[in-house]
């Protein structure tokens, strides 16, 4: 990979896995810098529909994951009856299926629906 080659060229690698496949699993640090930086919506007339869908679906996906997380906690805590579990599970199942359809419609992948919430990230990271 280019980033690894750059690190090697700049003599910054002290120790690295000899297995290239293993090495490739480490995240690209420049991508992390990019991820930590404020994101801006690019209002391009050619892709406005898809970009708007991405924004809306990102919010919906976040809420879906939060709901799912909350449901899992309630199940683990034993605060739901079997009927409630079935009803909640069915709702989440349908929501997940519908999200899958919408993502396919707009050609969006999971990575494109990631909202960076800054310090709030930690609060919702367990949803991933």
């Amino acid at each position, binding site marked *: 990979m280019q980033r690894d080659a750059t690190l090697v060229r700049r003599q910054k690698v002290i120790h690295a896995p000899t297995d290239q496949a293993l090495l490739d699993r480490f995240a690209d640090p420049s991508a992390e810098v*990019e991820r930590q930086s404020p994101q801006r919506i690019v209002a391009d007339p050619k892709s406005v529909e898809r970009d708007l869908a991405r924004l809306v679906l990102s919010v919906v996906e976040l809420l879906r994951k939060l709901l799912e997380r909350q449901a899992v906690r309630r199940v683990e805590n034993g605060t739901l009856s079997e009927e409630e579990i079935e009803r909640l599970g069915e709702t989440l199942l349908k929501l997940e299926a519908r999200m899958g359809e919408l993502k396919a419609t707009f050609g969006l992948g999971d990575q494109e629906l990631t909202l960076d919430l800054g310090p709030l990230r930690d609060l919702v990271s367990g949803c991933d």
Partner: protein
Amino acid sequence: MTYVYAIADRPDEPLPSQSGLHDEALAKVICRDVVAVVSAFDGWRLSKAEDELWRHEEVIEALMSDRAVLPMRFGTLLPSRQRVGDLLCEAYGALVKDIERVRGHVEIGMRFLTASEGRSEDDPSVASSCRLPPRGTRPGSVYLWAKVARDRELQDRRRAKLSLVRAAYERLASHANASRLDDERDDRQETSAAFLVSRDRIVSFREVVDEVANAHPELALLCTGPWPPYSFVNAGERATSGSDECHAA
């Protein structure tokens, strides 16, 4: 706007001959015996491209060749040189302490992965290895109990991974002057750590890294450096981030 690269001692020393981002000339903003190294930032946007990250790094490393340096994060901006000077003077005491703390030291970065990482919730191996079998036969219950099982499995993996990483980290930390482990965020596959190491102990630290790697074959280690001590700057970061006028690019 003014882009800030670093805060250093020895303000009378000449600046490195190289230019800064977008080939802007480097300049000094001095408060007593502390200097901020800056360049003009006139409207262009930082792209966060790898070349720009390395340019930022190169300026700081050039400064480190003959002085103690508190590196600023990439994208540190203030409204004017006047404001940079004001912040230097306001935080002067803390900056001097920080400079003394990092003098003669560099940062060694470490990133840890375990063999089981890289598998997501969509990986069938997560679901198939769950200890908790789905309950009920109706689709909603099966779905939700599968989520519960997957959640427990992932939590178990995280705990196991952190236990391995902490053992390796503590061994390395015992050979550093200071260290930090970033194990709070569980939304990333890898765990990172930083070690503040004396320049004259880099070679021996490298040997310890090799020992740790050999002792923990279940971990993949990516160790890089030496870097400016980005993770061990307290006052400089506070000085610039304490103002609403600081903007990440």
